[in-house]
């Protein structure tokens, strides 16, 4: 068909193939290689099997007298809420970056770093009751501690 087409049609056919097949190959590669560099994504939407058990990372501020306060934003938005997904990254961060991240979370929670002796990152295993739909903690492990 290209042999009979004018130069514009030939050019447009080349463009159509490059854009369509190129984009599909990129999408399939991102899916196969589990790439997550938005808007490139592997499209893992609810792809894991859920059970009654879940794992959650929590940040807890510990005062000099031992009082524990959960570090949660006082005025949560979708944007600020999602930063909790960065909690596991605390463990591998440099000491300076850890302190900066913890200070940012304390600030969002309205907590004064001067009133906090330690901030603990905990990995909590919990189980959901299918009737009440409430979670119960079943295990808690200290991942790392940061002095703000």
């Amino acid at each position, binding site marked *: *068909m290209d042999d009979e*087409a*004018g130069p*514009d*049609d030939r050019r*447009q*056919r080349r*463009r*159509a*193939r490059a*854009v*369509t097949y190129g*984009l*599909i190959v990129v*999408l*399939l590669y991102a*899916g196969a290689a589990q790439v*997550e*560099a*938005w*808007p490139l*994504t*592997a*499209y*893992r*939407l*609810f*792809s*894991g*099997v*859920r*059970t*009654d058990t*879940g794992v959650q990372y929590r940040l807890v501020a510990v005062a000099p007298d031992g009082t524990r306060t959960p570090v949660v934003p006082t005025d949560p*938005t*979708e*944007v*600020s*809420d*999602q*930063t*909790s*997904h*960065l909690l596991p*990254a605390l463990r591998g961060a440099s000491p300076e*970056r850890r302190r*900066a*991240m913890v200070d*940012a*979370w304390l*600030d*969002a929670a309205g907590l004064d770093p001067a009133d906090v002796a330690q901030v603990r990152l905990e990995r909590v295993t919990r189980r*959901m009751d*299918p009737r009440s*739909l409430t979670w119960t903690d079943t295990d808690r492990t200290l991942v790392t501690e940061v002095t703000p």
Partner: protein
Amino acid sequence: MTATEPATADPTARRRGPRALLAAVDVRLTAPGPAYRLRAVHTLVALVVGLRLATRDWTAIADRPAVLTTHANLAGWLPAPLPPGALVALQLAGLLGVVLVVVRRLPHVGFVLAWVCYAALTALWGASGKVMHNDVLTVTVGVVLLFASVPPRGTPPDARAVRWGWPPRAALAVLATVYLLTGVQKLRHSGPDWVLSDNLAWVLRQGSSPFGPELTHLVADRVWLAQLFAAGALLLELTAPVWLAVRRTRAPFALAVLVMHGSIWAFLGLDYSAWVLTAAAVAVPMSLADGHRWVGLLGRLRSRPVQT
């Protein structure tokens, strides 16, 4: 430019196998198409972008500290946090782009402007450590239309050309690929257990329905019903390329997508409206038979006598 469909006497039609199938797909992709169809899809996708731009307070991005902003995304090179004024300027520039598309003044420039602003804002919105999928389908389908040559003003709506035929078909192909991927990943990471276990019952219980826990219990406490929902969703995703390859099943696909994402919102409170609108913006116009246009349909509806 020609008014005829691709040659049906193409030699690939006599061959069999995957190569013949790919050749047939290529012939369909690159066949001439009418100007009005590209205009419809181009305008509708731009309107989805406009709706998303207009209905969110993007200044929430400015409240996120730089140290809690990730950079592994399209807008990762931008400084963080951007001031609220810059975010509002991006929002307004994007909306201006949508207006240019709708009024058909520099529609290509308008679409590129709208897409760039929308993609940047949604990338920044999701730069908190978790991949946000709410807008990714619209952004990805929009990539195709960045390369489309939009019919200039004065082009007869029924005029046909290769340049107007392939972009809506490419958008369909991308839509099909994305939905297929969402299904394949479920099978890859969970296998048949995604449907056959009590997986979806726990997904529902761990969500937050805007209608309260009674709705959650209604389905989650009946494992067979939750499995039926799971099977339906997975089947729809895996068969998306088939639905979208056939003209008559494209509109039903958009309807099925509405039901699936609508139920996700009802049970889990998650907003995937951009997926529904994008699927409709592409699949519904492409479901119309040759010669049937939105404008014609609207005109006929308006000209009907009012019955009293």
